[in-house]
C-alpha cells in the first residue's frame, strides 16, 4: 500500500552495494596481494583498485544503459539467444554462490566448528541463503538495510580497538624495477583483487531501480568498498605482517583478536566479530543466489510471485549439487579456469552485446536520414574504450590457479577432527604451557609441560590462590600433545584461557610449532611468550616475526 512499488530507496541501494561486495574482499584481498605479489603487495593493491575502478565505471555505464533493468532488457531484446544468456548468467551466479559458500564454510569449520563435518556447515548456510534469496528486490533491500549495521558495527570495533597494533614499517615501499613489472606476479595480484571484488557486477541489476541518485549512489558504494578494502589491507598486513597473511586465506581473521574490551569484559572479541561477519557473507552468497533465481525465472518465463518459490528451491539445490561436484577434479579445474579466464570477460561482453543490440534496434526504429547519420555519443566511446582496456588486462593472464585451487580444493581436503567438543567439566584449563626440545629423540620431537587449573576446590577470589596440576609428555606437535593429555587424563586440555607460553631456549627452534599455533584459533594470539633467554613477546608478534624471517 505504501511501499509495494517495485522500487528500492537510495539507502537500500547503498547498503545492498556495500554488504554484497565488502565481506569477501576484506578477508581475501590482503591474502591475494601478499600471496601473489610478495613484497610488492602494496602495488598489487593499488593497481588492483585501479582495475576495480575501471570495472566499476563499466558496470555503472551498463546500469545506466538499461533503464528497464539488465534482466528485463535481456529478456525482451534478444529472443532465444537472450534466453540462453539468461541461463548462462544463472549458472555463473550458482557457481559463484557455491564458491562463496564453500570458502565461508571452510573458514567457519577451521575457526569455529572444528569437530563438525564440513557438509553440515555448508548445507545449513546454503539453506539459509536460499531462504534469504527467496524474496523480491524490495524485501531484499529491506533485509540488507536492516542487517547493515549488524556487520558494520563489529567491523568498526576492529578498526577502533586494534589500531595501536598496526606496524607501519610493513608498508615501506620496495624498489621497483622492470623485472618486477614484467614478472607477472604484480599483475596477477592486481587481477586477483579485481576477481575478488568482481561481485560488484551485481550492481548492474540494482542501481537502475533508484532513478534519482544513480551517480551519487554508485560513487558512494565505490568509496565505501575502496575504503573498506584499504582499511582491511592496512589492518591485516600491518598487524600480522606479509609472511603470516600469505600463509593462509583465513589468517586475516586473527586481526580480530587484536581487539578486545578493556578489563576482559569479553576476552575474545574476535568470536562475536567473526559471528557478525557471517551476516556479510550471507549477503554476498544470497545475492548471487537471488540473481541466479531471477535469471532462471526470467529464462523460464515464469510468473514472479507464484513460481519463483520453486525456482529458488531449484537454485538452492543446484548450489548444493555444484558443491558436491567440487569433489570431482575435472569440475574443479573447469571452475578454476572459468573464474580466472572467463568470468569477468562474460560480465563485460554480454552487457556490451546487449547494448549494441539495443542501440541498433533504436537506430532502426528511428531510421530517418538525420537519425541514421547520428553517431554513437562520446560517452559510449569511452565505455567501449574502458571495455577494451579491461579485456586486455584479462588477456594478460594470471598465475592465481593456486589460490582458486586452495579455495575450491578445500572441500576434499577438509576433515573434521575426531575429538568432539568436550563439556566444560570435561576440560582441563591450561594456565601455562612449557615447551622444550627433546634432545634424546628425533629433531621434530618436543617436550610439553602443561600446568592446568585444579577447580575441585575453586571458590573464586575469596578462596585464595588457584591450585594447579601438572602433566608432561613428549610429542611432535601441539595437537599430538593434546591427544596424549586426553588419553592419559580423560579430560581435554583447554588452551583458550592460557596465560603464558614458555620456550626452553631460542624460539627459532620452535618454528614448526609456532606455525601450528598460528592455525589454532582457540589459542589467543595475545598471550605472552617467554623464552629461556629472557625475551618476552606476545604470541602474535612472535608468529609475525617467525613468518617474516623464516622462509617457507
Amino acid at each position, binding site marked *: *500500500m505504501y511501499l509495494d512499488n517495485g522500487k528500492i530507496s537510495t539507502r537500500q541501494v547503498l547498503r545492498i552495494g556495500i554488504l554484497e561486495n565488502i565481506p569477501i574482499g576484506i578477508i581475501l584481498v590482503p591474502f591475494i596481494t601478499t600471496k601473489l605479489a610478495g613484497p610488492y603487495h602494496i602495488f598489487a593493491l593499488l593497481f588492483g583498485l585501479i582495475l576495480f575502478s575501471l570495472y566499476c565505471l563499466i558496470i555503472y555505464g551498463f546500469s545506466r544503459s538499461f533503464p528497464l533493468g539488465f534482466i528485463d532488457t535481456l529478456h525482451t531484446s534478444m529472443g532465444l539467444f537472450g534466453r540462453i544468456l539468461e541461463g548462462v548468467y544463472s549458472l555463473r551466479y550458482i557457481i559463484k554462490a557455491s564458491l562463496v559458500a564453500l570458502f565461508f564454510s571452510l573458514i567457519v569449520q577451521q575457526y569455529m566448528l572444528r569437530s563438525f563435518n564440513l557438509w553440515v556447515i555448508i548445507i*545449513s548456510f546454503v539453506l539459509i541463503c536460499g531462504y534469504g534469496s527467496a524474496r523480491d528486490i524490495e*524485501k531484499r533491500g529491506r533485509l540488507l538495510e536492516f542487517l547493515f549495521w549488524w556487520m558494520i558495527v563489529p567491523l568498526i570495533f576492529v578498526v577502533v580497538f586494534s589500531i595501536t597494533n598496526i606496524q607501519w614499517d610493513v608498508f615501506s615501499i620496495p624498489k621497483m624495477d622492470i623485472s618486477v613489472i614484467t614478472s607477472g606476479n604484480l599483475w596477477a595480484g592486481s587481477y586477483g583483487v579485481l576477481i575478488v571484488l568482481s561481485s560488484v557486477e551485481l550492481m548492474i541489476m540494482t542501481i537502475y531501480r533508484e532513478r534519482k541518485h544513480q551517480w551519487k549512489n554508485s560513487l558512494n558504494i565505490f568509496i565505501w568498498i575502496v575504503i573498506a578494502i584499504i582499511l582491511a589491507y592496512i589492518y591485516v598486513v600491518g598487524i600480522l605482517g606479509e609472511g603470516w597473511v600469505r600463509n593462509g586465506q583465513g589468517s586475516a581473521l586473527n586481526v580480530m583478536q587484536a581487539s578486545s574490551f578493556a578489563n576482559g569484559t569479553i576476552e575474545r572479541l574476535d568470536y562475536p566479530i567473526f559471528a557478525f561477519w557471517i551476516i556479510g557473507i550471507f549477503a554476498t552468497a544470497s545475492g548471487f543466489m537471488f540473481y541466479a533465481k531471477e535469471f532462471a525465472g526470467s529464462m523460464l518465463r515464469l510468473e514472479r510471485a507464484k513460481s519463483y518459490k520453486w525456482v529458488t528451491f531449484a537454485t538452492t539445490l543446484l548450489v548444493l549439487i555444484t558443491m558436491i561436484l567440487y569433489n570431482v577434479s575435472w569440475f574443479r579445474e573447469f571452475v578454476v579456469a572459468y573464474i580466472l579466464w572467463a568470468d569477468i570477460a562474460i560480465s563485460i561482453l554480454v552487457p556490451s552485446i546487449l547494448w549494441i543490440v539495443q542501440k541498433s534496434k533504436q537506430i532502426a526504429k528511428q531510421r530517418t536520414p538525420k537519425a541514421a547519420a547520428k553517431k554513437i555519443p562520446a560517452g559510449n566511446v569511452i565505455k567501449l574504450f574502458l571495455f577494451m582496456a579491461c579485456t586486455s588486462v584479462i588477456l594478460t593472464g594470471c598465475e592465481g590457479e593456486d589460490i582458486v585451487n586452495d579455495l575450491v580444493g578445500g572441500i576434499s581436503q577438509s576433515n573434521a577432527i575426531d575429538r568432539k567438543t568436550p*563439556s*566444560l567439566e570435561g576440560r582441563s*584449563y591450561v594456565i601455562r604451557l612449557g615447551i622444550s626440545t627433546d634432545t634424546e629423540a628425533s629433531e621434530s620431537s618436543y617436550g610439553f609441560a602443561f600446568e592446568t587449573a585444579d577447580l575441585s576446590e*575453586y571458590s573464586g577470589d575469596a578462596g585464595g590462590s588457584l591450585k594447579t596440576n601438572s602433566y608432561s609428555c613428549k610429542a611432535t606437535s601441539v595437537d599430538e600433545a593434546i591427544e596424549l593429555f586426553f588419553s592419559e587424563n580423560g579430560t581435554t586440555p583447554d588452551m*583458550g*584461557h592460557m596465560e603464558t607460553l614458555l620456550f626452553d631456549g631460542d624460539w627459532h627452534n620452535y618454528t614448526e610449532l609456532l606455525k601450528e599455533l598460528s592455525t589454532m584459533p582457540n589459542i*589467543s594470539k595475545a598471550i605472552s611468550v617467554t623464552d629461556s633467554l629472557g625475551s618476552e613477546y606476545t604470541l602474535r608478534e612472535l608468529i609475525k616475526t617467525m613468518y617474516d624471517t623464516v622462509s617457507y
Partner: protein
Amino acid sequence: MANNNQNTNVESLFDSNNKLKVNIKPSLDENVSVLNTLFDKCGDAVQKPFIIEREQGPVRIHIIYIDGLTDNGMVEETIIKPVSYEWRYENEKDIWDSILYREAQTVDIKEETSFDLVIGSVLKGDTAIFVDGYAKALIMSTKKLPLRGINTNDSEAGMRGPRDSFNEGFRQSTALIRRRIRDSKLKVEQSFIGQRSRTDYAIMYLSDIAKPELVEEIKNRLEKYDIDAIYDSGMAEHLLEETPYSPFPVFQSTTRPDKVAAAITEGRVAIVFDNSPEVIIAPANFNMLLQTSDDYYNRWAVGTFARILRYIATFISVTLPGFYVAITVYQSEIIPTKLLYAISSARSLVTFPIVLEVLIMEFLFELLREAGIRLPGPLGNTIGVVGGLIVGQSAVEAGIVSTMVVIVVALTAIASFAIPNEVFASVFRLLKFFILLTSACFGLYGFILGLLIIAIHLSELTSFGVPYMAPTVGGGINGMAGSQDFIVRSPIKVMVNRPIWAQKKSRRRLKQKGE
C-alpha cells in the same frame, strides 16, 4: 419427530449464509408465527401482544426483547406506557407515524423492514415492535448489557497518564475514544462480523488524516470472510492478517484508550470489537510494539532511556539462553577466565549437559508462568514466588541445574516482562527456544544463523504495506519521518510531522498558532 419438523421449519427460514430470508409481512399473525418459530425453546426471549385503543378502533401490536440484555424498565416507560395509556385517545391518521413520531419516548428508535436485521437487533438487546398491518418493525435501543465498569488498567500500567481501561462494552470503548478526540472527523463505521455471534465492530479513524485506501483495505478484509463467531479482537486480528503463519503480530492491541486516541491522530485506524477489552490498531510495526504511553508523558530523555532499555530487554529475552549455551559449549574462549572457572566448578555437581540444563530451567519457568496465570490472583503470585525461590534453589542443591543457569533464566524472564505488549512478549519467549536450539547445534555460528532467519522473516513482514521494521528499514521512502519517534523519543516540539501512514497533505501535526 415433532422436533425434526420444528428444525426443518427453522432451517427453511434461513439462507445458506445463515441469514433470514423471510421478510416482514403486513399480517401480524404471520410475523408472530415466524418469531415463535425462531425463538422456540428460547426461555430468555420475552414476547407480549398488546391491543391499544385508538379512535379508529383497537390496534394490535407485538413486542419482543431478550431478557437480561434489555432494560425492562426502559421498555415499559418509553413505549408500553405511552402507547397503551398516555396517547390512547389521540387521533392520528397513521398509527405507525403516531407511534414513531409522537408516542415513543426515546430518541434512539428506527424502522426496519428486514427480518434479519430486526432479529439481529433484538439479539443485541434492542426491543422490536411489530404493528398489525405494517410490513416493517420499530427497533428501539434498550440495551442494558451485563458489563463491568471502567477499571484501572492492570495489563498496561504506567507511572504517569490516565489509568482507565477498555472493557467488554462496545459502546463504552468507542465512547472512551470519542471522549479523547472531540472531532466530527472522527468516524465510527459500524458493522458486525460472525454469522452466529454477530459481533459488532467499529472502524474508527480521522477522515482527514487516515489514508482512505487503508480504511478501505481494512473494511475489505473484515468483509472478506464468513465465520461462525468472533469472541475477541484477537480472533479478528488473525483473520485480517496477511501472514497467518508468522509469530509476530501485525496489529497493535491495547486496552489503553489514550494509546488508541494517539494512534488515530497519527493516521492509523482502530477497530473496536464488542465483547473485547482489547482494541486493535493498524498498521503496526516492531517499533510501535515496544512503545508505551509513558514515553510521551515523561521527559524525552527518560522516555528515550526507557525505550533503549526495552530494546535491550527484547534482545536479551530472545538471545540470552542461546548465547549462554553457545559460549559455554562451543566458544568458551569468550568468557573471562575467572567467570569460566566459576561456571565450570559450579557445574561439577550438575548431572545434565548444559543444553538440557537450560531447557529444563526454561521449561520450568514457562510452567510456573502458565500456572500463575491460570490460578486466581493471590495464588498465582504465590506460585511465582514459591517456584522462583524454592524450586530454583532446590534444583540447584539437587544438582539438576547450576546457579549460573538460574541467573540466565531469571534474567531472560525479567527481560521478557519489560516488553510492554504481552502478545509481542510471548513471541520472543517462543523464539528464545528457537535460538537456543540453533545455538545448541552450532554454537555462535548457529546463534547468528538463528538471528538471521528471524531478521529475514522480519524484513519481509509488512502491516498494511508498512514495513514491519520501519523506520530501521524504508528510510527516506515517501518522506518517512520515523526516526524522531524511534529508539530516541524526540521532544514533543521536534515531532512536527505525522508518520508515513498519514495522508500526505496532513503530515504536519505541530505548528505555532498563526503559522
